[in-house]
């Protein structure tokens, strides 16, 4: 008798989503931490991107790390998970547009993505691809109805009891 080892993706899906959720949350918390450590660098990076008018660039720079931090924590604990993923997805769209425009302009500049561990990346196709992958993960989470080990699921079950 031949026995086939079949990986049941339907069974694994919630675990894969859990892994992706925690991964995306952790990435964004790390990104936020670096930005909060060096707020002045972030302001000059956003101005360097040369997309928004000066005043709006500053407001974006003050707000950005907090969106990343709050949404990242929400993803990890699984509270308002879909909304947090939606917030991150829009953020990633803005990153992709900003990096795309500056690559088109042919400008070499600091990405400002992770200002920790001495990381100092320049914008380029790898960064663009990474953001597209993160966007796809965020989009998948927005479309997910139930999350393993999450405050959302815990609260929903409690309200049904």
């Amino acid at each position, binding site marked *: 008798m031949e026995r086939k080892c079949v990986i049941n993706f339907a069974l694994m899906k919630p675990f894969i989503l859990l892994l992706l959720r925690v991964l995306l949350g952790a990435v964004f918390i790390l990104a936020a931490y670096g930005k909060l*450590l*060096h*707020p*002045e*660098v972030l302001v*000059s*990076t956003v*101005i*360097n991107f*040369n997309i928004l008018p*000066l005043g709006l660039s500053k*407001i974006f720079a*003050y*707000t*950005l*790390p*907090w*969106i990343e*931090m*709050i*949404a990242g924590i*929400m993803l990890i604990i699984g509270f*308002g998970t*879909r*909304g*947090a993923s*939606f*917030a991150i997805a*829009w953020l990633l769209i803005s990153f992709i547009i900003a990096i795309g425009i500056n690559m088109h*302009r*042919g*400008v*070499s*500049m*600091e990405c400002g993505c992770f*200002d920790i561990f*001495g990381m*100092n990346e320049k914008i380029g196709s790898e960064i663009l691809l990474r953001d597209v992958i993160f966007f796809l993960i965020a989009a998948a989470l*927005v479309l997910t109805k139930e999350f393993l080990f999450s405050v959302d699921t815990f609260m929903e079950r409690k309200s049904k009891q």
Partner: protein
Amino acid sequence: MNLNKTWKSVIGTTVAVYLLSFILGVAIHALTTGTSTDGKVILPESYIQQISALKTITVEDSYKDYTEENTVFIDARDNAEYNEGHIKGAINIPYDRFQQYYPQYEKLFTKNKKIITYCHGIGCGLSVDVAKDLIALGYTNVFVMTEGWPGWMNANLPISVGKEP
């Protein structure tokens, strides 16, 4: 109906995250400005290493040189950005086309002249690249105006749009 309700809650959560972040960000900026860093700017390590090997100059000192008319300002950004606005009288040598642009401006760089390069401001390495290229050619009176175009613009100093005459 049910789907609608779900999406309303998703969008509501997103808006709440954005609003809370905006309030936190602006409030913390307002509370910490002028106290935490005393106006000191913290920069990435690689930028610090590059810039510390060069001579730098503030916007204020650059303007003193500007009024004495013994200085050449070089905008290291690309043509489009230069045309959108630059320091009045500055020439444009995009950092990645130094070899192409240098010959036409060579006669401007006489021995006693000071050369100041600038680009998008603090953290921007384009002006550093142009300064290094000039130093490699033997120029010694080369400075990088680290606050760059934003610093000059914020100080309401003379600017010009489009090509220089």
